[in-house]
């Protein structure tokens, strides 16, 4: 799974991506094309790289070094097509030679800047030969043309044009023949260096990504989590996007603690407006961030790598495929059941599944789903208003209204029915009193029955 495919899931990855400040937009493209890690070793590898850059970024001298790198990376361009063409034997034109020279210049510059800090996670090949090939007169600037010094005849002919003009165009034609020959020579000599150029290009993008991730980690207060097996445990987890919106309004996000066990589904209940959806959204985001080697939004966390992340935000409508929200949800649960039966390790976050159908059937569907998933290698968190009686599930709930104020804390809940707080919350919203009084009367009658 590539990062770009999850960018528009409603879990907030787009916000994270938009907060990243890449020196070159090419690095952003490389990141979007990166594939999700699924093994502990791969995730550990990603985090070791991030740790190396992060610890450099946190020192004064180190952050100055990285700033210099970023300045050099501003001119980095995607020249993969040029390199492919060069490899296949196409004679490069001046624009392509300019691009190659520019890449070699940036790579040599960044290599020089990073040499004293000796980083393990990025490796820059020595491109000094390419720089001297494409800068034969040693000007030390990345501009390019077929220099006079490539061919002794060129300077002579060009001098002639400069001094006495070239009305017939004959001298220019002669120049063009020599220039074409020079380009062919350069193409042949550069062909052998394509591997190194490509390595340089990707290493520069990687360095840019790791610098951006380091800056993001500080900016959003992210943490590098522990890699766990069989448990997903977050303390003081927060949603970075909602947090940012709240802090603009001088409000703070109430951080919560949560723990999920593999093989044992968790049911999350609680009042409307109690932040259940935000918990699910944040856990989905955090798992993606973890598997793509980012810091996660929590004070500390232990996270287990999974192969698949199923996040159903509740109002899942796939209109492009003509599915109603119910159908889309059912399809997703179906995939979850089938894939988990094959032993795929999955994180499933379901926000009020089957909420659009009648409560009796809805409760049955959710209960049976949890019964089936129980014991499979799946982390399941289901937020629901239904009174689900599935066995062997962990139960947590939002603490709820306290003196008219919402406490978003997640606490253990018993087997009993979820507290009925909808009316109280509606009251706090200033909803019509007559209606709510009538609702209370109806509830009392139901309870008597």
């Amino acid at each position, binding site marked *: 799974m590539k990062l770009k495919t999850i960018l528009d899931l409603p879990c907030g990855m787009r916000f994270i991506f938009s907060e990243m400040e890449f020196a070159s*937009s090419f690095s952003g493209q490389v990141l979007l094309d990166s594939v999700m890690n699924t093994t502990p070793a791969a995730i550990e590898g990603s985090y070791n790289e991030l740790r190396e850059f992060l610890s450099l970024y946190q020192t004064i001298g180190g952050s100055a070094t990285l700033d210099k790198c970023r300045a050099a990376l501003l001119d980095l*361009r995607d020249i993969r097509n040029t390199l492919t063409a060069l490899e296949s034997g196409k004679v490069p*034109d*001046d*624009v392509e030679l*300019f*691009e190659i020279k520019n890449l070699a210049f940036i790579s040599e510059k960044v290599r020089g800047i990073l040499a004293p800090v000796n980083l393990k996670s990025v490796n820059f090949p020595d491109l000094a030969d390419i720089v001297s090939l494409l800068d034969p007169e040693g000007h030390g600037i990345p*501009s*390019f*043309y*077929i220099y006079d010094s490539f061919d002794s005849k060129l300077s002579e002919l*060009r001098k002639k*044009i*400069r001094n006495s*003009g*070239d009305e017939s*165009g004959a001298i*220019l034609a002669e*120049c063009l023949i020599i220039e074409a020959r020079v380009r062919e020579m350069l193409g042949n000599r550069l062909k052998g260096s394509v591997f190194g150029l490509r390595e340089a290009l990707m290493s520069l993008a990687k360095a840019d990504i790791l610098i951006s991730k380091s800056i993001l980690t500080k900016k959003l207060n992210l943490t590098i989590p522990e890699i766990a097996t069989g448990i997903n445990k977050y303390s003081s987890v927060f949603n970075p996007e909602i947090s940012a919106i709240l802090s603009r309004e001088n409000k703070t996000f109430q951080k919560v603690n949560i723990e999920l066990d593999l093989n044992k589904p968790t049911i999350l209940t609680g009042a409307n407006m109690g932040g259940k959806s935000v918990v699910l959204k944040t856990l989905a985001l955090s798992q993606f961030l973890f598997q793509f080697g980012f810091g996660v939004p929590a004070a500390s966390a232990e996270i287990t790598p999974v192969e698949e992340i199923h996040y159903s935000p509740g109002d899942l409508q796939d209109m492009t495929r003509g599915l109603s929200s119910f159908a889309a949800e059912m399809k997703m649960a179906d995939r979850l059941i089938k894939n988990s039966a094959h032993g795929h390790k999955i994180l499933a976050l379901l926000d009020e599944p089957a909420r659009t159908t009648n409560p009796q059937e809805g409760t049955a569907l959710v209960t049976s789903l949890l019964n089936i998933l129980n014991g499979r290698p799946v982390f399941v968190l289901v937020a629901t208003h239904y009174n689900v009686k599935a066995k062997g599930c962990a139960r947590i709930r939002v603490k709820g209204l306290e003196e008219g104020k919402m406490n978003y804390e997640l606490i253990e809940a018993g087997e009993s029915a979820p507290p009925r707080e909808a009316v109280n919350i509606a009251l706090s919203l200033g909803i019509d009193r007559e209606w709510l009084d009538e609702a209370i009367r109806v509830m009392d009658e139901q309870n008597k029955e």
Partner: protein
Amino acid sequence: MPFIQEILGCKSISVVGLEKNTGKTECLNYILRRLPSSGLTVAVSSAGTDGERVDMVTGTSKPEIFLREGILFSTSEKYYRERRLTSEILSVSRKGTSTGRIVTARVLTGGKILLSGHPATEDLKKWIEDVSVSHGADLSIIDGALSRLSIASPAVTEGMVLATGAALSASMDTLVRKTAYTASLIAIPATEIRIDKRGDMPSKGLWRVENDGTMNALEHESSLTAGSILPEEVKGAEAIYASGAVTDRFLNQMQTLLVKEGIQLIVRDFTRIFASQGHFNSFIRSGGVIKVVNRSKLIAICANPVSPEGFILDSSKLCGLLGDATGLPVYDIMKSDYEA
């Protein structure tokens, strides 16, 4: 050549043709030939794709631009490859156009090239800034187009030279009248209201401009749907800013809506005005006030008496009439026997 002195007083100028084959390219070549060859770094580009070797519409030959040593230019990759001069690449744009990315280079030995530049106004503006800041250009010249097909407005430059000629009309009267009308549009003064625009002016919709310079969107998508604006929506506004095209119909609607309330009509620049001369004059005569945000100073008019069909107008008569009608210096650059 007095107008070269005026050009030297500007940081940027555009050369715009009223019609294809009015001699814009010759006019540009003429200016480039006469600019001092030392102590002044000149950069040249074009607003969008232009400059086919042979005109695609009429089949007449189009002169390429001759650039001498030291001049900076920007053109698209396709035309850069076809250049007939030696030049050093300084930078390559990120954004592409239909003929490739824009290459900025310095001429090492003079020769000919076709220009094709950024097709959008904002990019053109940025180009002027870039060549000046990054590459030290003292004067930027844009080969501009004045047609509805061109998105990029040449009004981003300080000064402007207008190329007109027999290609516009075979009748000298019509030619003079049309040219004078365009010249009068270019001369529309900039608004005195200090608009609080926070960056660039909005590119969509109709806006109320209050007397403190703040702007509020009117609930109308564009000047084309302005017919439904109610008088109370504009009441009390200092001006109305129309981001889109000002057509005959729009101008008529504004006439009834704005004139008696004393509300100004503001447009981005003169290229937004597509209204015919009759409607425009009627708006002005009824007391309407129209102003622009970006104004270019019209420096001179270059007239080309030769039409692509082959007939030739009397050069000195044409220049005289144009001069009388516009009050601007007019030159027949084909004659090129003016004092340098």
